[in-house]
């Protein structure tokens, strides 16, 4: 089958699976394999980061250059940005000023390290944005913000201790990206918030909490149940997704902390694992569309399961279960 909208099913036919949720599990794995970067792509990204790091520390020997976000945690989709931050070794905020910002942006421009270089000085977090000439990947560089580095370390430890987290996060991220619901400044759900929702769901799931299933063998049903929880049942007006010092998830009522109260009660609240008084999904003001999208995904997936369950083998051939909720736009890989 050659449907260009879901290329991951090419040469991977699972239509003979008796259980539709197994079919979906296999398609999730095929999709992840399809969107995972090749050895060359990984090398090219690493080269870009290494070259920039060398140039910046060459110019400022007392600076460190770190990556955070999806690049640092290996949760990136094809074409995702690279997020970098420059911090002073002494942690004295030496580079948190406009002259550093402009010095670095002219350096990048003059040495042709980036194209379309933009210097955004007036934002809450001043950044330099540009496109890497070699890979055409978008790069953002900020200064002296260490919370992204801390979050990346936490996410890496979560991926290690929660099988299935990486797989479900990649699917949900792609689902949100296709609908442009993944951009925080337009009210969408950011990467870290997405990871928090998936991890909380997985850890609190009765079958997972009792250790009675292997999540990697049950990704299909778990994906449907993720959409079921956050698209249908979750009490957003009242319930906060939280994590204790050990990273174990729990829920707490919004009433218990002023930091989570809002004029509009229908808002997503996720307690910052590093700061109990901070709601990391504060910027996600478009919860209505996100909840509706999750609910719609649940409906489409279960209806597809019912249809495929009744279909003949001939009707099933070349069908995609995942393709009802996820399209792959962009270059064929």
């Amino acid at each position: 089958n050659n449907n260009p909208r879901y290329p991951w099913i090419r040469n991977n036919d699972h239509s003979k699976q008796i259980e539709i949720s197994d079919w979906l599990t296999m398609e999730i794995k095929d999709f992840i394999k399809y969107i995972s970067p090749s050895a060359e792509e990984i090398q090219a990204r690493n080269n870009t980061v290494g070259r920039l790091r060398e140039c910046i520390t060459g110019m400022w020997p007392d600076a460190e250059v770190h990556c955070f976000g999806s690049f640092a945690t290996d949760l990136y989709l094809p074409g995702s940005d690279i997020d970098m931050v420059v911090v002073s070794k002494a942690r004295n905020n030496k580079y948190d000023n406009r002259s550093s910002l402009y010095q670095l942006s002219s350096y990048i421009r003059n040495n042709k390290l980036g194209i379309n270089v933009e210097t955004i000085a007036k934002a809450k977090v001043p950044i330099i944005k540009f496109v890497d000439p070699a890979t055409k990947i978008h790069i953002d560089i900020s200064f002296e913000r260490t919370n992204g580095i801390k979050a990346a370390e936490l996410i890496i430890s979560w991926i290690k201790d929660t099988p299935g987290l990486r797989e479900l996060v990649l699917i949900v991220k792609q689902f949100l990206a296709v609908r442009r619901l993944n951009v925080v400044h337009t009210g969408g759900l950011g990467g870290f918030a997405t990871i928090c929702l998936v991890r909380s769901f997985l850890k609190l799931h009765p079958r997972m909490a009792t250790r009675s299933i292997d999540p990697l063998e049950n990704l299909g049903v778990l994906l449907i149940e993720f959409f079921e929880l956050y698209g249908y049942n979750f009490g957003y007006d009242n319930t906060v997704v939280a994590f204790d010092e050990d990273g174990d998830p729990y829920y707490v009522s919004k009433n218990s902390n002023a930091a989570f109260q809002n004029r509009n009660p229908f808002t997503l609240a996720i307690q910052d694992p590093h700061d109990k008084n901070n709601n990391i999904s504060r910027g996600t003001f478009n919860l209505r569309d996100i909840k509706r999208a999750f609910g719609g995904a649940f409906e489409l997936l279960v209806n597809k399961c019912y249809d495929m369950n009744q279909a003949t083998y001939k009707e099933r051939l070349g069908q995609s279960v995942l393709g009802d909720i996820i399209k792959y736009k962009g270059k064929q890989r």
Partner: protein
Amino acid sequence: CKQRRKFNFCTDCNSKTHSADRCPNIWRSYITLPQNKAHKFKYPADLIYCYNCAERGHYGDECLQQRVSKTPNINGSAFTGENLPRELR
């Protein structure tokens, strides 16, 4: 060896909530791990939280408080005591 066990949620597929061809058991089925000496299922006392009222000790499907979500839960969800392994219910 793996066991496949159907989620035993709707006991009667001719019930009023759905017809047999739209039974959640069609997709809500898990490949379960075998429980033995080396691998015991664990009662998740500190991981039972209610998605509706946020209290500890019961799942959202069994919540006695008024439902917060305006989207109905007709067939039940994954977050019910019924979804614990039989040995732990």
